[in-house]
């Protein structure tokens, strides 16, 4: 295997029309180092790495790979130089085996595959790796952490010398993240690889990166050794002078009546396997119940049932002591609001405008509807108000929501849903993929709802988030509630054990 490559950008500038996404950014990544790229959503991190990878052509500035200026015209050219990238989302073919995916990644699949030779080569490669993934296993049978490892193995198999990782741990549990990052750190230490890692997680940056560059609004606002930069300083660089939303002080009042009472829920997942197996839980007014668990243990199905997107096979959902039908009338009567994960996919209509998406809950009520007729004016005015209040960055209310950045889609959905009066709020991974500032805002909004007396079920794969926000903690494993404790008595070790026990 060849040696690590250095990367340097000199005055890299990229404009989209009148908007400057990257403004003369110069960063320096030493060969054989792990360099973190930090910044808010829309700060220009993705634009920067896409310029390096040949997806975008910079308007100005140079990219130096291994100290030589390179004209990288396409991702193919980048690959030829030994550059590789691991994306935030998986790029594996789920119904093919690990070996087939490795072969596919090379981009040159011969008409007839000499599997014997390929297998020998792959086995040799796997033997040189500190962790192994079974070559014959189909991707769909792998756990999320294993898939992420295959993504990385795929790049290493192609002999990459500089690897760019776009939020590599966003789908991983903390333990899995440590395993993957530890492995990569090892490769860097052996001098085989240089890594540029886009991340929001300060903990990982401090644990694994030796240097960091911070972008804000397309400009490089700070860089240095992680050892020399304290966390508050990094955060300040990232968000600028604006201060982070502080979580509203938790009003220390006892929880009220039971609002949500789900008992004995049984449901199958999309493939017909039993995902929920008799899960029961209750949430009281004015408390946040944090539901922790490794993804794929029934959380998604639970949220879908509460959101009316899936019918349970058995069990009952009661809200305010009444059977809850999860339709429009029942949700309105009981003031139930559901915020599923991936809001663009689950909670908004990508083809419709921001204004129409903001109207989704109220379009059939006055003043947005007069009899059977819609009032475009009322929809527009309501949207302008929410866009202002929640600082949604959109060109206009008529812009299709799919054109907004992830953080702003989430803001739009929150603006729509949290501006309602709420008795029961069900949220799933509300801060997934969001930057520090947006995360702080959302967490503050959740605590504010709790203090106003809403019962909140917070389903999250981020244990830190759960421990920070919850009044009570529960763990879901294999479709059952495996642990429940008030926050004061909750024990991180115990929770971790229950998450993986079957």
């Amino acid at each position: 295997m060849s040696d690590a490559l250095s990367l340097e950008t000199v005055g890299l500038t990229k404009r989209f029309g009148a908007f400057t996404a990257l403004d003369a950014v110069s960063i320096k990544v030493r060969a054989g180092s792990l360099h973190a790229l930090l910044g808010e959503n829309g700060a220009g991190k993705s634009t920067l790495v896409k310029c390096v990878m040949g997806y975008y052509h910079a308007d100005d500035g140079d990219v130096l790979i291994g100290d030589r200026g390179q004209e990288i015209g396409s991702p193919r050219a980048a690959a030829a130089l030994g550059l590789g990238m691991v994306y935030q989302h998986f790029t594996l073919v789920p119904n093919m085996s690990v070996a087939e995916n490795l072969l596919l990644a090379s981009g040159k699949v011969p008409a007839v595959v000499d599997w014997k030779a390929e297998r020998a080569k792959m086995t040799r490669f796997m033997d040189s790796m500190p962790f192994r993934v079974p070559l014959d296993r189909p991707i769909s049978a792998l756990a999320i952490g294993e898939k992420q490892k295959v993504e990385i193995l795929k790049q290493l198999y192609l002999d990459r010398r500089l690897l760019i990782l776009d939020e590599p741990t966003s789908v991983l549990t903390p333990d899995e993240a440590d395993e993957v990052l530890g492995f990569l750190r090892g490769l860097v230490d052996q001098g085989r690889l240089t890594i540029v890692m886009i991340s929001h997680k300060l903990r990982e940056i401090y644990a694994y990166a030796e240097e960091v560059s911070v972008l804000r609004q397309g400009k490089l606002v700070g860089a240095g050794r992680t050892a020399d930069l304290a966390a508050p300083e990094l955060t300040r660089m990232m968000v600028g002078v604006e201060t982070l939303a502080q979580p509203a002080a938790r009003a220390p009042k006892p929880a009220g009546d039971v609002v949500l009472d789900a008992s004995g829920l049984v449901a199958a997942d999309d493939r017909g396997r039993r995902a929920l197996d008799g899960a029961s839980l209750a949430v009281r007014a004015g408390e946040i119940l944090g539901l922790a668990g490794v993804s794929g243990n029934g959380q998604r199905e639970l949220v879908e049932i509460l959101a009316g997107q899936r019918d349970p096979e058995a069990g009952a959902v009661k809200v305010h002591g009444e059977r809850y039908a999860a339709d429009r009338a029942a949700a309105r009567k009981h003031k139930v609001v559901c915020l599923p994960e991936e809001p663009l996919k689950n909670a908004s209509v990508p083809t419709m405008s921001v204004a129409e998406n903001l109207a989704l809950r109220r379009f059939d009520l006055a003043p947005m509807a007069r009899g059977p007729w819609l009032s475009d004016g009322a929809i527009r005015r309501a949207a302008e108000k929410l866009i202002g209040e929640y600082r949604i960055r959109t060109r206009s209310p008529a812009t299709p929501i799919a054109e907004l950045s992830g953080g702003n889609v989430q803001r739009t959905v929150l603006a729509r849903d949290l501006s309602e009066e709420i008795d029961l709020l069900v949220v799933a991974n509300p801060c997934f993929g969001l930057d520090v500032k947006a995360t702080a805002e959302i967490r503050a909004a959740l605590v504010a709802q709790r203090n106003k007396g809403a019962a909140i079920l917070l389903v999250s794969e981020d244990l830190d988030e759960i421990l920070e926000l919850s009044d009570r903690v529960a763990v879901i494993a294999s479709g059952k509630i495996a642990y429940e404790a008030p926050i004061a008595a909750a024990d991180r070790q115990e929770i971790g054990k229950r998450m993986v026990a079957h």
Partner: protein
Amino acid sequence: MAAVAETSGEAASPTRGAWALDRDRLGAIAEAIAIPLIALLAGAALFALFMLATGYDPVEVYALIWAGGFGSSFSWSNTLLRAAPLLLTALYTAVPARLGLVVIGNEGALVLGGVAAAGIGFALAGAPAAVAIVAMGLAGMLAGGIWVALAGALRHFRGVNETISSLLLSYLAIALMNHLVEGPLRDPASLNKPSTGHIGDGFMLGALPGTDIHVGLAIGIVVCLICHVLIRHTRTGFAMRVVGGNPAAARLAGLGVGPLLIGACFLGGAAAGLAGMIEVAAVHGRANASLAVGYGYTGILVAFLARHNALAIVPVAILLGGIGASSGLLQRRLDLPDASVLVLQGLLFVAILASETLRGRLRPYFSGR
């Protein structure tokens, strides 16, 4: 590109925001017009190549298509007569398409609507004309609507692909018509061409004042307008667009996805059934195999060309009506086979399907970003 949306919006002052809105909308509208236009031109160019290859002069062919479709008041009236059923059969595909369904059994719904209308009209002989005509219209709409609602229900409750089921239901409908006109509903006097009994001249729809064109054209345009208003300006239409854009979000909002899906299918089928009723009550006077002459299939093409916009269906139906109307002239002057305009239609359809890949790529040019 996400970054673009984020920051340029932040910089927008209230006045610039209003301006940006117009520019955004204009860009979207310009794209919605440009894509079908490009597709039409590409399809026409392919047909020109086909004509060249078969030894005809494409310039002459297009001149004749123009003359035969739009060159004289006679050709215009021929064109509009053909456009009338297309307006309604196009809605069959266009309305469910707003909910994300692709249903293409237009021909069957038209045929069933025609048979139902003819049956009712024949049975009501002697009743007041207004009553009979309304009853025939309702029967046609009900027959067409229920037939497609079946495909919608199969899709919603059993997950059956609605494209396939609507097409197969359409074949069944045509077979059902053949059975009815050759059996139970057959007029013994119809010897060569089995037909239902004639509904009687008293029940026939008249012509638009001062023209040879029957009122079906006006009905078609009015129904297109109604569908447009329904989809764009009512609560129900909003809910339909939510379902079409993202069924998961529609369920999250507690909207009744099933009733909306099946209702939209019914609506589209009712429009096609009405087309069948008009063909019977304004043209043939009876139901027979002449109902299944392809207005349904051309309706699919109209809906796709109009990008499922009920208003755009009107000009597109007239355009394709004109192309159909010119086939006679092409045959007489150039001895071109009747089917050559079908080749043109087919090429247009392929070009339109291919043009979908341009969606969203032209808008930046139009909105100047």
